[in-house]
């Protein structure tokens, strides 16, 4: 018998031994077991972490009343509406006459039941919703709303008619391993651009809006694809190379060719606004303004919190953060002109129809803010 054959048999035996393994029960155990550690130096550190986990896992909705929204100095304005949108609002998009909210991120029982809801900005009420995988991402273009569904059974992109709110096409996206990251979307240069992520690599694809067919463009690194945007006639990808060095990739949409990577200070989400490309610096907690053709840095704006989501609108860049802080940056002056704090996480924010719309995970709601 060869070593390889014996090793593979032993690996399969490990696989077969885990049929009773229940990840959901493991999630509970993660909390429960930490509480049983004997008291000691290490136990105190673990207990502290456990308390954080307990609050996040069961306390936020189960043991505590809904957290209140606070307005620290420099607040963006006042809350004029709290619109229930379901668990885990993850994405907000203002386009095509409505506010679109993707929800379903970070839930157990609804792990396969993400939604894209249409909110009427005139009434602040939901006027329809379609199903999607967990943690969908949104983009607008070609008269449609596009939702990337990161479903464990397969990634797809839904094309939604903004008038009816109905899905008009579901476009399968082929990846070579189970996806663990939400796909990223951008619209421009005649296509819808998609990053499909799996455990070992990311793939860039483009969808032809005329045929609703997806075609692969290129495989990019495992750590590349935290952000995607179309600006200056190029498709930009943000992330890190295999040595975890921050960089930007530029794709020529005419040839699908990727130019040599550019070194970058940022490594996160991308957005386009005010004639510039904007990049989030997750590790640096800073926003970078870049030239959309060369990628040259034009300005940097320190935030002090991790920027997770960027969108441009109403003359500002809006930054959502897992810390719960939403930051407004003036596109003309590159300065922070307002902040708003929610109690939990604020993974996305967008402006339109005279309001700022914030995804509030703690309250499972979309907050409408009237700028003050």
């Amino acid at each position, binding site marked *: 018998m*060869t*070593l*390889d054959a*014996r*090793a593979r*048999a*032993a690996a399969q*035996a*490990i*696989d077969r*031994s*885990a*049929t*009773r*393994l*229940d*990840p*959901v*029960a*493991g*999630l509970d*155990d993660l909390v429960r*077991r*930490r509480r*049983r550690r*004997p008291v000691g130096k290490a136990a105190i550190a*673990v207990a502290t*972490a*456990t308390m954080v*986990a307990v609050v*996040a896992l069961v306390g936020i*909705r189960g043991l505590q009343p809904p957290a209140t929204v606070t307005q620290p100095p420099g607040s963006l304005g006042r809350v004029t509406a709290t619109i229930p949108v379901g*668990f*885990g609002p993850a994405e907000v998009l203002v386009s095509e006459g409505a506010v679109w909210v993707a929800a379903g*991120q*970070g*839930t*157990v*029982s609804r*792990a396969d039941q993400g939604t894209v809801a249409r909110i009427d900005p005139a009434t602040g009420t939901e006027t329809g919703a379609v199903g999607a995988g967990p*943690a969908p991402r949104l983009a607008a273009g070609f008269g449609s709303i596009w939702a990337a569904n990161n479903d464990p059974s397969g990634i797809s992109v839904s094309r939604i008619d903004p008038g009816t709110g109905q899905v008009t096409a579901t476009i399968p996206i082929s990846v070579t391993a189970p996806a*663990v*990251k939400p796909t990223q979307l951008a619209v421009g240069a005649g296509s819808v651009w998609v990053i499909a992520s799996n*455990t*070992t690599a990311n793939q860039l694809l483009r969808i032809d809006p005329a045929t609703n067919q997806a075609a692969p463009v290129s495989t990019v690194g*495992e*750590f*590349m694809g*935290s952000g995607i945007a179309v600006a200056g006639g190029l498709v930009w990808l943000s*992330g890190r190379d*295999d040595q975890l060095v921050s960089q930007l990739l530029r794709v020529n949409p005419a040839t699908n060719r990727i130019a040599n990577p550019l070194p970058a200070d940022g*490594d*996160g989400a991308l957005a386009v606004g005010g004639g510039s490309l904007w990049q989030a610096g997750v*590790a640096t907690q800073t926003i970078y303004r870049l030239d959309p053709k060369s990628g040259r840095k034009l300005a940097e704006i320190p935030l002090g919190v*991790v920027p*997770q989501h960027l969108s441009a609108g109403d003359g500002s860049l809006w930054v959502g953060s897992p810390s719960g802080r939403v930051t407004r940056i003036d596109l003309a002056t590159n300065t922070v002109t307002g902040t708003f704090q929610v109690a*939990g*996480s604020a*993974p996305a924010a967008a402006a339109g129809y005279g309001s700022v719309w914030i995804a509030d995970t703690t309250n*499972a709601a979309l907050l409408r803010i009237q700028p003050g």
Partner: protein
Amino acid sequence: MNRAVPLPGPFEHFYLEEYPRVVKLAYALSGSRMAAEDIAQEAFLRAYRDWERVGSYAHQAAWVRRVAANLATSGLRRRLVEARALARLAARREPALDPLAAENADFWRAVRALPSRQAQAVALYYLEDLSIQQTARVLDCAEGTVRAHLAKARRTLARRLQLDAEEEP
């Protein structure tokens, strides 16, 4: 299950997706049905605590495997086994993993007797079916280093288990 537990960012989705695989890796490297889940949970707890950073990149899977592999081959493993065994005794709970047949248990025992980096490389290569490049990424080392670890490990395992090491990775 009818629970809806909100968690920050995509952590929960990541957890549910990766948890079984990380438990299996921990089982192979620790040899303990009891400690494997604890090690995996420790790794995920660390990911959770640092989720603002870890969750922002596309490398969570490699990151959590690296932590779990290091925990499983470190001295902490023994302490986890002891603590966990006591907890299970108190709770009268059986581990979710089944015991291995003698031949397979012998193989993993031989793997665990290797130097820790060699053992980790073998587990990732055979159990996770990772490529050399992917294994290098998890272990945070060069591909050549992984090849060297695997070559040494294979020679040692073949000798101890009296197997033919004809296939080279």
